[in-house]
């Protein structure tokens, strides 16, 4: 009986405390970023902070619900949950509601639900289920194609709904695949392709070709054994140049104007500094405001509810994607660093727990959770601070919104449940 009790409460409290800290601090910042005039009541549901408080309340109901299922339930029903998520995404094309040009929401009365937020954990479950199958071997091309299909199905559906930001998140699963045995060459190719893309955009095709050629020559001469034929090297070079050219074409013709501008500003592709500055002012308004708000916070910040740029609503979308700028302005370097550290600790904790799982399903899922949180964290805060081009995705547990908060909560607490069950595994 005693052992039963112990087992039941064997949840990882460190993870849970980190989660609570992030949600709580997130709420304070949403309160600051969204209040208009005096705060009369914290439960004023006509205000965003009032609504968010309700979302947080419902989150706890959700947590109890998730934890009450058998751990095995998630493994067993992973495929069905995934299918439901895919159907929900597809249904958007018929029943969906357009918000800001993206068809990502279901409207139920005054409520809206964004299925893409829930598709993440569903996909993570499906990936874990597929990889943990005894017959799956990530080294084989067949399985690689199948898991790719698992992640690209929702990703493409979401891209078609004009939500490019959420699509990028699915690239997070690369970390999972790599952990589970994907060949190193993929990593090398991925990094190379990113470098080639940047080179091609920034310095042109000729420079790209020369740099690639040099890299190949170095590799050729240092690799005394098992040299590939010259022909293969020429082929690689051609592919690299072709890819660079393709990226350039895509940048010029394939992107929407605002996406193109974001990349132009980020990579400083415009040579004329005055024009670039004008472009920044025109196209990167959010970013400039967000950077200014963060900078103005200084070491200790202006204090809770005291941020002048937050109060003046200078940063558009500050309560959602740009919530971190509120932290920067009102809590300063100290508060912002604490948030960064909390996220890093949470992700590391999940990774640690994942590695200690006895079942491969739990481990893969845990890795998926860590990867998804990591990509969100990196892209969101990187964007708000101007380190990467603007991509609109929320900061987990922080940004305003029910679907987002619930999506991440489900994602995390399924893992908490799986983890709590590890003693029963063998």
């Amino acid at each position, binding site marked *: 009986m005693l052992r039963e009790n112990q087992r039941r409460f064997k949840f990882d409290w460190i993870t849970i405390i980190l989660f609570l800290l992030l949600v709580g601090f997130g709420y304070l910042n949403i309160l600051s970023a969204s209040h208009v005039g005096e705060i009369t009541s914290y439960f004023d549901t006509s205000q965003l902070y009032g609504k968010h408080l309700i979302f947080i309340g419902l989150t706890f109901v959700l947590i109890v619900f998730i934890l009450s299922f058998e751990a095995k339930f998630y493994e067993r029903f992973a495929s069905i949950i995934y299918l439901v998520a895919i159907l929900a995404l597809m249904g958007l094309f018929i029943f969906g509601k357009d918000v800001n040009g993206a068809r990502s929401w279901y409207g139920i009365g005054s409520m809206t639900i964004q299925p893409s937020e829930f598709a993440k954990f569903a996909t993570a479950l499906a990936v874990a289920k597929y990889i943990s199958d005894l017959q799956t071997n990530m080294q084989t091309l067949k399985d690689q194609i199948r898991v790719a299909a698992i992640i690209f199905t929702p990703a493409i559906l979401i891209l078609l709904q004009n939500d490019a930001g959420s699509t990028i998140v699915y690239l997070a699963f690369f970390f999972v695949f790599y952990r589970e045995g994907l060949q190193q060459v993929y990593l090398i190719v991925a990094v190379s392709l990113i470098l080639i893309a940047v080179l091609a955009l920034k310095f042109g095709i000729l420079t790209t070709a020369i740099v690639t050629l040099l890299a190949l020559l170095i590799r050729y001469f240092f690799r005394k054994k098992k040299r590939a034929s010259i022909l293969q090297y020429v082929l690689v070079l051609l592919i690299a140049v072709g890819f660079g050219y393709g990226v350039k074409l895509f940048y010029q013709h394939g992107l929407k104007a605002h996406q193109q501008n974001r990349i132009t500003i980020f990579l400083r592709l415009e040579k004329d500094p005055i024009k670039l500055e004008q472009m920044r002012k025109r196209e990167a308004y959010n970013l400039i405001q967000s950077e200014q708000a963060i900078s103005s916070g200084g070491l200790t910040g202006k204090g809770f509810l005291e941020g*002048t740029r937050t*109060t003046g609503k200078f940063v558009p979308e500050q309560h959602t994607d740009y919530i971190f700028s509120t932290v920067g302005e009102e809590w300063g370097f100290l508060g912002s660093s604490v948030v960064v550290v909390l996220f*890093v600790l949470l992700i590391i904790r999940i*990774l640690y727990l994942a590695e200690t799982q006895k079942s491969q399903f739990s481990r893969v899922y845990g890795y998926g959770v860590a990867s998804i949180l990591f990509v969100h964290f990196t892209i969101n805060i990187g964007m708000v601070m101007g380190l990467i081009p603007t991509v609109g995705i929320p900061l987990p547990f922080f940004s305003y919104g029910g679907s987002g908060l619930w999506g991440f909560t489900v994602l995390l607490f399924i893992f908490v449940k799986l983890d709590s069950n590890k003693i029963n595994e063998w």
Partner: protein
Amino acid sequence: MRKLLLLTTVILVGLVFIARLFYLQVYGGYEYNIFEDSAIRKEYNYPKRGYVYDRNGKLLVANQPSYDVMVIPREVETMDSLKLNEFCKLLKITKEKYLRKLEKATNYSPRLSSPFVQQLSKTDYAVLQEKMRKYDGFYIQKRSLRSYQTTIGANVLGDIGEVNRAIIAKKPYYKLGDLIGKQGVEKTYENILRGVKGIKFIQKDRFNKNIGPYKNGTFDTLPKPGKDITITIDAQLQAYGELLMTNKRGGIVAIEPSSGEILAMVSGPSYNPNLLVGRDRSKNFNKLYRDSIAKPLFDRGLQAMYPPGSPFKTLNALVALQESVVTTEERFSCAMGYRYGNRKMGCHAHRSPANMNIGIYESCNAYFANVYRRIIDKYDSPAEGMDNWSRHIKSFGLGNYLNNDLSVGQPGKVPTAETYNEGYGKNRWYTTFTISNAIGQGEVLATPIQLANMAAAIGNRGYYYTPHIIKEIEGDTIPLKFTTPKYTTIDKRHFEPVVQGMFDVYNKGTANMLQVKGIEICGKTGTAENFAIIDSVKTQLTDHSIFVAFAPKDNPKIALAVFVENGYFGSRFAGRMASLMIEYYLKGEITRTDMENFVLRYSLEHEYQKPFSGEPFGINRQTTLEAIDEKAFQKLLKLKAEIPKS
């Protein structure tokens, strides 16, 4: 290894983020300053600048509203050419000027506001005010400009102008576009007249709209109005003095000996203070500033240092009595001058030998050379004697700044033993080396206000109040240093013979032509030799005409020094003007219209042209008087009649 990829990436990203935060917030971040926060609008409310009244309560300086267009460059949107054209038209500037001004403001600070177009006319303001909200980053700031109720006293009243960046750096109260006293009482009493501007902090949103007071207005302040001041100037006397100085260059400083209050402070040539108000200020100021010949901005009453000449002899007489080196009755002979060694200091024909009374009213050089030698030679070494003499002279306020409340001034010069030690070497000079000091030439230099103060001290028989311009400050007292008498080193009993001598200057001496019926005037004429460098040759010009006086003889009401550049001998212009000023002040009218006509009719402009004519010219005795034409003369008489009575 595979386990470590994500782990290391996570830690790396965390570190990069903290580094970026450090760069943005600590390294590149600035100390939070609400004045630089573009989310907070700062609305200044400029207080009423204090009014300036003359000693009789006549309003001299009031205010008029003025409107400036201000710009905060960072908030300015790029306008298409149509909108820009329209805006430039409203502002009445060209497109190029618009861009130039915007660039200049951006260079100063993109965050802070800079003046864009200043001092709009009322009609321009009315039109612009309606349309202002269409142009982001621009707003209208109301200020208060001066409105002079008079055309006189430009050098006394001074003016206000825009603060420059050097001032802002030193005094953070001022923001670009603010006005500050630049000259005269506007400068010395800036802090009292200015008041304190009020400020409102308003939270803006990103559309530049006000959304309410910042922190419920906790930091807001109300403007504190500036205090009115009353100055010691008698506007009527000042106006009359300026009229007398027409077509002449020089200065008149009149002081009330019983209080040290400056009754008039004339500097010629003068200008209308209204020239330095409004949009044309800088144009007009530059014109005045660049006039390096007439130097209208040079206050000759305060800044011009000249050898004081004969009026200085009165001090030597006083020092001699104090030091008991002569009695009033001791006589010295004068054979058209004073011989020392193989040199001679010339004098004019008069009764000889002369006692102190004759010495003063005949202005005998030989008499004072003898007296001066006794003063210095009383001691074992000339150095000791010189320092003792210097101490007495300085006690009359000569040789140093008066430390008063005027915006400009000069120390003048009274030599000490050190002066000659430097020139000749220690113990290598004798009293005769310095003999010119006896007659106020030599190394002595004084400004007209110092001479007027000297006259006041003599009139007071031994003390003076620091000459000052402030009479009353609304709800405040004037500084104690202006109401505390300063005593000279001469005992009261020694003054009477000297005062009598100065009185006799009027009775039977060099100024006997200048008497005014019913007023006992004590005075002393003077001339000062002066030189100019013409084509790198030191050339002597016609002497400056100097006159120092006080009246009445007992309990004087007015003491003054008059100084007319190149006016020749003392009684010719300066003496006449002094008598006229005294009569005008004491009687309120002029009975000696002959003197007045002389002063008004004769111009010295031709004299001032001489050094620039490029031709040889005569001085002093070779000069002639040149009358202005009748029409101009009548105009001056009319101006006199129009001086408002106070």
